[in-house]
């Protein structure tokens, strides 16, 4: 207890500590001013660094692994290695396979762990330590929104990977963030007519929903569009992300009087919930004189692979599928297959396209500065990336393009050939006003970070 009675006084020590900290902090501030950069992390050497922030662990790890493969392929193509992939079919010819703005593309990776905290820590590391000009990735909308707002605050560009929530370019839209992937509203708009044609207008739907931003908006969008074709929503139940066991949620469905189960799940969650629903005999059951059916609004080939034969005949929507026959898709499937030995998933596709679109915008804008680069992306109309003519809408930074309605194949010819494209829904049918109530948000000002 007699500490500091004599010798160094407590006050003197504190003063010393504060003086020391001020002295140490000073050089940092000078260094920051001395660079005179016009925007944050302006590349000065012969390389420019991209940050690939994907889930390597957790419920979306499969998607994350495929996203990383796609990013690495994109970097190869941007640097002029490999066969060039979609650069050959892309309608903008600004990129020549010699890097971007004369700089070779390098990259750093990070693990989001499908958690907002970890994703932000990893993105901060990329921005503060590795000096990236752009962060891209994410396989969860919660994470994408968290990282997007971080990039906005820091002043670098965010190119969203797989994120399907309305909020990413809806109420949480940001000027520095861009999304190529489609969203829940588009899924609903594309699916409803197909569901009506196959299952009629007199149906009772039961929703099981992953309990986070993506699940909520998808539940809302699908419920709205199915109610518009005359269906009734019996119940909406929220399930925790990464629950593993869904039996306690599926049993009540059987006695609820519903004849359609809508699974607003993705990744391993969807694999588990669908498998368990089938095991509980849901699809062999007759309710209200009709066969009970399952709908998975957001489908992916990786999930279909996980769920195996259970996906047969189940409808859903996807952003892209490797069996598409347009030149862009073919070129991408070919170079991805040559590199890794299997076809890419839709997560891989959207990430690859985002990396290319970013590089192209930088080349056309002549700078990596988020504000100028953003202007090159806003209202940008392009083709040859696998979804037909596509528009990067200026009002909300959302891409508008065809949406695929798919169905689990009855007789798959290989382990990758699990989904068949039922309909390619045209862009007009899924376009909406940027300020409808589900989406109303503000982009705010752009931020160059310096």
């Amino acid at each position, binding site marked *: 207890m007699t500490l500091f009675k004599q010798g160094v006084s407590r006050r003197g020590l504190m003063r010393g500590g504060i003086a020391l900290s001020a002295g140490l902090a000073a050089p940092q501030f000078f260094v920051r001013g001395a660079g005179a950069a016009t925007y944050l992390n302006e590349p000065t050497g012969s390389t420019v660094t991209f940050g690939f922030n994907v889930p390597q662990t957790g419920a979306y790890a499969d998607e994350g692994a495929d996203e990383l493969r796609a990013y690495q392929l994109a970097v190869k193509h941007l640097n002029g290695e490999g066969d060039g992939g979609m650069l050959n079919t892309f309608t903008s010819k600004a990129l020549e396979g010699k890097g971007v703005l004369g700089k070779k593309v390098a990259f750093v990776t990070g693990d989001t762990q499908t958690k907002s*905290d970890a994703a932000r*820590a990893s993105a901060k590391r990329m921005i503060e330590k590795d000096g990236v000009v752009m962060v891209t990735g994410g396989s969860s909308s919660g994470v994408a929104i968290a990282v997007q707002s971080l990039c906005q605050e820091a002043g670098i560009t965010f190119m969203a990977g797989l994120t399907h929530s309305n909020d990413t370019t809806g109420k949480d839209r940001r000027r520095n963030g861009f999304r190529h992937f489609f969203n829940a509203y588009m899924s609903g708009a594309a699916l409803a007519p197909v569901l009506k044609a196959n299952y009629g207008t007199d149906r009772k739907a039961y929703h099981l929903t992953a*309990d986070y931003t993506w699940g909520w908006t998808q539940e809302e969008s699908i419920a709205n569009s199915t109610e518009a074709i005359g269906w009734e929503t019996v119940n909406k139940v929220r399930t925790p992300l990464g629950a593993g066991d869904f039996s306690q949620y599926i049993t009540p469905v059987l006695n609820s009087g519903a004849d359609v189960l809508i699974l607003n799940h993705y990744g391993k969650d969807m694999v588990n919930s669908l498998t368990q629903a089938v095991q509980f005999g849901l699809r062999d059951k007759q309710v209200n004189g009709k066969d009970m059916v399952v709908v998975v609004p957001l489908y992916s080939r990786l999930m279909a692979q996980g769920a195996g034969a259970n996906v047969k005949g189940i409808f859903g929507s996807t952003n892209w599928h490797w069996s598409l026959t347009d030149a862009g898709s073919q070129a991408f499937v070919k170079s991805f297959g040559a590199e890794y030995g299997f076809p890419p998933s839709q997560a891989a596709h959207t990430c690859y396209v985002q990396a290319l679109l970013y590089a192209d915008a930088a080349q056309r804008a002549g700078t990596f500065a988020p504000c100028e680069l953003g202007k090159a992306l806003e209202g940008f109309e392009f083709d040859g990336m696998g979804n037909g003519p596509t528009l990067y809408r200026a009002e909300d930074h959302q891409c508008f393009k065809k949406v695929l309605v798919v169905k689990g194949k009855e007789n798959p010819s290989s382990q990758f050939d699990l989904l068949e494209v039922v309909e390619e829904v045209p862009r007009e049918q899924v376009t909406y006003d940027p300020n409808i109530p589900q989406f109303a948000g503000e982009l705010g000002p752009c931020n160059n970070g310096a």
Partner: protein
Amino acid sequence: MATTPQTTPNQDRLLFVLFAAAVLTAPLWASVIGAGYPDLLQKFAIFGILAIGFNILFGLTGYLSFGHAAFLGIGSYAAVWSFKLFTVNALPAVFFGMVFAGLFALVIGYISLRRTGIYFSILTLAFAQMSYNLAYSVLTPITNGETGLTMNQDDPRFIDNLFFAPEGNALPSTNLFGIEMTGFSGFYFCAVVLIIAFYIAMRISRSPFGMMLRAIKSNQNRMNYTGFNTRPYALTAFVISGVYAGLAGSLMAVTDPLAGAERMQWTASGEVVLMTILGGAGTLLGPVLGAGIIKYFENIFSAYNAQVLERIFDFLPDGIDHAAASVAGLFVGEGWHLTLGLVFMLIVIFLPGGVMEGFTRLRAKFSKPTVESSSSGSTTSPAKDSA
């Protein structure tokens, strides 16, 4: 374990000054090991505070709480709500974070401390998991569920709006009377708080109250038989420890205004236990070191990918370098947990007193020639409090 630490005030003073100097110069020496960027330095300081607080409970009284992440999360939520409702100044946020975590700790501690040992651990774990689930789904209006609580454009911010006209439409950032709490200024704020927290922990540890806590650890029954009611002491330690965790949680929100439910998950509670044991439970410096080591692994090792490894092993002959890179690849990137697990095993097996025991042994080795110090028995006590 029974040896009472006998350190002179002079030694303590030296330790404190060295600690303060090391913390404040962190941006310089940490950049040598590739950790000299603000976000990681902030994490070092914040988790250092959390581990110091945890050590007051676990290291001194021996009560192993498996639910400390709950207080961390409550601190974060309280801080973000303070940003949303009152002001973006850091001080009220820190204050509310500590107060709410302290109140919560009082309630949980009052109930849990009726049991000791494994039962106490399970009770705290249950409470933490309950808080996690509440934050995750039931209390979504307050916590915003999985998405996490963030600041919004249209938050009331009563105090700020009272004194300053809202400027522009950009989201205000957290600050301390104008100093932005991001980057290095954010780190220095956390660092100063860490140094204060360390000083308080040191005083607690050297006080009669600290002695009482150690007595609880060595034999609680004997204490009770001699007429001491130990529970108020243990409860005080629990609350102090909870306040430390709330402080750490609020600092997390100050440097990055976002509070997510995953901060309260049991893995987060486990992490604190790992930090303390890795560094050395019961020592003053150990928990801070442990926190640093774990955060370093999480942020630096997880970022190594094939590209980086190829560059590192470039000096090896062709063929071997690829093999070396692919073997090393198992332990970095997404495999960083594996490396951490191995390090943890090695330390628990060979240095049960954590990294601090390693230092103590090293010091004993070098000071062997003098006859006096070899008789002080420094190598036999893993939980030594000196250093």
